[in-house]
């Protein structure tokens, strides 16, 4: 780390905290990303009355080599990393996937003209993990 510091004399002192932050919070790591759509974009608003907007979110990013408790990943995730690095690189590295969801209420018009309110499980990603 000391060499690194030496190598970067051009960084003006006042954004040193930014400079250090990249070591504390690794970039592009697995995290939840916002994604919002409206059913009118899909031309589904003819039969989906509510909600108008739907935010399913998604998970994206790299999984660190040593996945600790930060992701709540099972031990198997680390084992898979070891298999990938040491034994067989055709075995994929752990992926960044949703770990928890929340439900969504949907109001729709049925083909026979009746109206249905239904609560669907696991429709909005709320947390990501590596596994």
């Amino acid at each position, binding site marked *: 780390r000391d060499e690194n510091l030496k190598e970067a004399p051009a960084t003006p002192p006042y954004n040193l905290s930014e400079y250090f932050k990249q070591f504390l919070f690794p970039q592009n790591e697995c995290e939840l990303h916002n994604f919002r759509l409206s059913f009118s974009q*899909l*031309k*589904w608003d*003819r*039969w989906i*009355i*509510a*909600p108008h*907007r*739907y*935010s399913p979110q998604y998970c994206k990013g790299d999984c660190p080599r040593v996945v600790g408790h930060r992701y709540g990943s099972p031990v198997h995730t680390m084992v898979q990393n070891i298999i990938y690095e040491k034994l067989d690189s055709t075995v994929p590295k752990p992926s960044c996937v949703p770990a928890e969801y*929340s*439900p*969504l*209420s*949907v*109001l729709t*018009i*049925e*083909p*026979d*003209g*009746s*109206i*249905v*309110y*239904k*609560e*669907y*499980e696991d*429709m*909005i990603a709320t947390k990501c993990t590596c596994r």
Partner: protein
Amino acid sequence: PHSRGRVVSDKTSGLLVAPEDNISELNPLLRLPKGMRRGYALLPPLLKVLSDRGPQNWESEAPRLQPDSRALRYMKRLYKMSATKEGIPKANKSHLYNTVRLFTPCSECKHRHGDLMKGDVHSVDLLFNLDRVTALEHLLKSVLLYSFDTSVPISSSITCMCHLSVKEHDFSSQVCPSISHAIAFSLHFEVRKRKWVELDVTSFLQPLIATKRRNIHMAVNFTCLMGDPQQNTKLENPINMALVPPSLLLYLNDTSEQAYHRWNSLRHRRKNPMWPRQRNSLLVDPTGGKGKENSQGKRASRRR
């Protein structure tokens, strides 16, 4: 996938299941292990739409019957009461149902009896088609939903006598259906701004819906008078009001995997101490009506 192989709908769950013989043609990602395939949902209902309605054939879809605007307004209000702005079911709602279906009587019946609605004695023939209710949707409560027109003065006290009878179609005699069982009750209510009256007919319809009857044929006689017998006011001058034929509201608990099971998530919370504890009693009204749960809910939130 809809371009490869024919997919049939599973009558019992109403969901799509690929026939055994051309399972091999399905995308390997979609294939379930052999043991699970029989009668099991390949796709959740909402995703079923994805497989049925790809963008290219959206235009070719048969036009949908448009629902009654009053019914639509009522269901939008129910949606607002049950879900947040983001569309997430409200956590503090203790209602048991995760599905509510509103059926309007079939249009031919309505048309045939439209003119019967004027005057003070209303007799209407109702036929509801419940095909959309799946085998995994279990009835919790059924309500006949009446809406009054604006001619009735607001906050007037009205007492109505309602005579409800279910008609069985006896196919041996084509002339007229026979009446299987009937119920009569009186109903007193104050007409408020919202102009909706809910008639709880759960116990009356339960045996029919439990036997998975797809068509419910009812005759409803409705007589309304101004006044309130309990307040000893004289029942007088019958109300001449136009009554729209009632809709049928079914509160259901869908036990399929795709449906949200509130109790599961609550149990999950209970296991995970990080989440605040909530006291819910199974004895609450399936529609989350007022009652002791609310005061408990309040106490719990205050404690929190």
